[in-house]
Structure formats: C-alpha cells, structure tokens
C-alpha cells in the first residue's frame, strides 16, 4: 500500500482532502502513516494562536475617532461632474433642448399628419360633394332664372338653354344618386324636382316658345324650385365654409 504524503496528511488535518474517508481508512490500517499523522497533529495542536488582548465594545469607535479627521469625504459624484465640467453640462443641456424640440416637432407633425390622413377619406369626400353640388346648384339656378326670364319676357328659349339643361340633367342624376343616401329630404326633393324640370326642358322641341316655358313654369313650379335651390345654395355655401375652416384648422 502506498503511504500518504506529508501534503495529504496536512490536507487531512485541515479537512481539505477530497477523499477523506479513504484517508481515514488508510490511517486505520497503516501504522507508519498513523504515527506520522499523530505526530503532525500533536505538533499543530501545540502551535496555538497567541491570544489577542481583549478589546472592549468601544474599540471600533475609538479606531474611527482616531482616523476620521484625516479622511476627506468623497465628493458627491453628480456635483463634482457639474462643478468640474460646467461647459459640458450646459452644452449637454442645449443639445437636450434641441433634441427635445426636434422630437416634439416630429411628434406633433406625426400626430397632425395622422389626424389629417385619418380624416381625409370622409372629409375630402364631403368637401368634393359640397363643391360640385354648389357648382351644380349655381348652374341650375342660372338656368332657372333664364327660363323664368324667358317666360316672363315672351321670348323663345334658345338652343344653349336646352343644351345646358341636357348637361345639367346628366349631372343631376349623378348628384341625386349620390345624395340619395344622405338622408337630406330637402336636397333629395330639390334634386328630384330639378331633374324633372331639366328633363322637360331638355326633351322639349328645339325652340321653346313662351307658352311652353309658361307651361313648364306652371306645371313644374320652377319659381318654387328656384327658391328651394337658393336655399340649398345658401346652406351648401355655409357647409363649404365650415369644411374649409376645419381643413385650415387641421393644417395649422
């Protein structure tokens, strides 16, 4: 059997050995190793630590008292940095402000763009409808005024009036269909009424006599239609102005 080395014995004495049980088993069976271990233990057991003189509970406080005056407090890190580098601090603050302003601008623009874009599909459609409807009502009003004047003055209606009526008739059908779902009874009724008048004018003989015009006026109540259209024009104009104001507000 291989004897334990001095290092292994020392390890075992300080319980630093990894195979403690094996070493103990060896020591039980190997007399030379057991003697060496006993001698080592006897030696180390007699090497006692010198007893340190007792220190009372105030010892630590006395140590602190004796050294604290010679110790300078650590400077607070944030204050020290600002104190030593004020220019850097100001430059950093300016950069921060600039960056903040830039980001705020970007965010504002982003939000604004989003709201405009989000509102566009509905508002843009309304603005277009109002614009073309206003234009259509304007042209229709002028046609009705001409028609009424022609009838009042006993003149014959010329071809351009009929041509205009035909063109307006086509447009009117489109607008009437467009606004049919808008739940605006006045507008629906007016356009429906206008369509019948335009149809009558457009489909009349090439030259409308004053009698024809008078008949149309009477039968179709063009005066009443003209009034309706003027009321609608006023309302549509207001709606156009409101829409434009909203658009300007969104842009700002």
């Amino acid at each position: 059997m291989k004897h334990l080395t001095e290092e292994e014995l020392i390890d075992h004495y300080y319980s630093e050995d990894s195979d403690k049980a094996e070493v103990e088993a060896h020591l039980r069976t190997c007399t030379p190793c057991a003697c060496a271990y006993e001698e080592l233990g006897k030696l180390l057991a007699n090497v006692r630590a010198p007893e340190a003189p007792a220190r009372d509970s105030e010892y630590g406080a006395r140590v602190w008292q004796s050294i604290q005056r010679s110790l300078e407090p650590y400077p607070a890190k944030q204050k020290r940095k600002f104190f030593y580098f004020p220019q850097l601090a100001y430059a950093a603050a300016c950069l921060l402000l600039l960056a903040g302003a830039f980001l705020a601008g970007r965010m504002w623009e982003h939000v604004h763009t989003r709201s405009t874009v989000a509102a566009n599909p509905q508002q843009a459609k309304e603005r277009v409808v109002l614009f073309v409807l206003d234009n259509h009502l304007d042209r229709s009003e002028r046609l009705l005024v001409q028609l009424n004047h022609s009838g009042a003055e006993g003149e014959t209606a010329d071809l351009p009036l009929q041509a205009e009526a035909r063109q307006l008739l086509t447009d009117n059908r489109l607008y009437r269909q467009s606004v049919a779902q808008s739940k605006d009874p006045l507008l629906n009724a007016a356009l429906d009424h206008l369509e019948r008048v335009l149809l009558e004018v457009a489909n009349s003989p090439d030259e409308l006599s004053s009698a024809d015009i008078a008949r149309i006026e009477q039968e179709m109540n063009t005066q009443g239609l003209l009034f309706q259209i003027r009321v609608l024009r006023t309302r549509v104009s207001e709606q156009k102005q409101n829409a434009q104001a909203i658009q300007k507000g969104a842009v700002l």
Partner: protein
Amino acid sequence: MGNDDHALIRRVLVGEKDAYGALVVRHSQAMFRVAFRITENEADAEEVVQEAFMRGYHNLGNFDARANFRTWMYRIAMNCALDVLQKRKAQTTVIIAEEYDGEETTVQLTDSAAGPDRLLLSQEVEARRQAAMEKLTATERIAFVMRHMEDRSTEEIAGALGIAPNSAKQAVFRAVQKLRQSLAPLWVRS
C-alpha cells in the same frame, strides 16, 4: 452583513464619510485579532488596524462590488501587518538567531524536569514557535495564520492574498513543513 457593507460603501462614495465609521466599528475587532496574530504585538496590531482602515478608505473607490468587504479588508490588513513586520524584522532576526541556535536548543530541550525548568521549557517552546514563524515567508505566515489560527478556508486565504487557491494551499503546506522541521524535535524530546 455583506449587503449592509455594500450599502454603507455606496453611501461613503457619495460623500457620507460617517458611513465608513459604521464599517470601522463593525470590523475593528476582527481586524485587530488577525493583526495581532500576525504581528504578535498589541501596539503593532492597533497600528495595523488604523492603517488598514485608512488605506481601505482611500481605496474604497476601487472596491469591487462583488467582493466581500471583510475579505478585502483582511487583505489590506495583511499588507499593513507585513509592513510592520518588515520594519522590525532585522532586529528580531538577529535576536532569534543569537538565542536559538540549533545546537543550543537541543541541549536545552532535553531537560524535562518540573518546576522552574519546566517553565523555562515552556518559554523555550513559545520562543521556538515565534522563531519558526519568523522563518516563514510573508505569504506562508499569513496563509498559515489564516488557515491554522483563523480557521479560514483555502479560498478565503487565496482571496485575501490575491493568489490562486492551489498557491494558497501550497503556502500553508510549506509553512507547516517549516514549522515541523523547527518544532518536531522539541515535541519529541519534551
């Protein structure tokens, strides 16, 4: 306690000097005990404690937050103790060399009689132990004190000395060997 130490250290580093006082109060006793076991002199041990805490304060900015403050202070205290030992080493070496020559020792220790002679033997044993300790290198002495007297693990010794655990173990081994060479005849004969 470790977390408390770290909290106190953070306070010290932001300007609360008095927080260091709490650390000093908390660890002074342990520092004194180990300083005395190394220097074996009361005044020297107190000097070591004060110097160690002063060095600790000045180097607190370099303290690794992952480390143990007491282990870190042990290491500083060891260095301070070594400085103190080196100051007096020359004188001590001369005295020991003159008093405990090998031949002379053999003659003195063969007497195991009781009474004044036994007291003299006891004094001789203690003196021999001190002489043997003086023969150790600084690393061996500290490693042995921490292992044998402070009951510190190899890892703690290695941490205090800033060496590998295996090196710490070897230092303890060499210290024991040297002590054995110096003291074994004494125990056998006495």
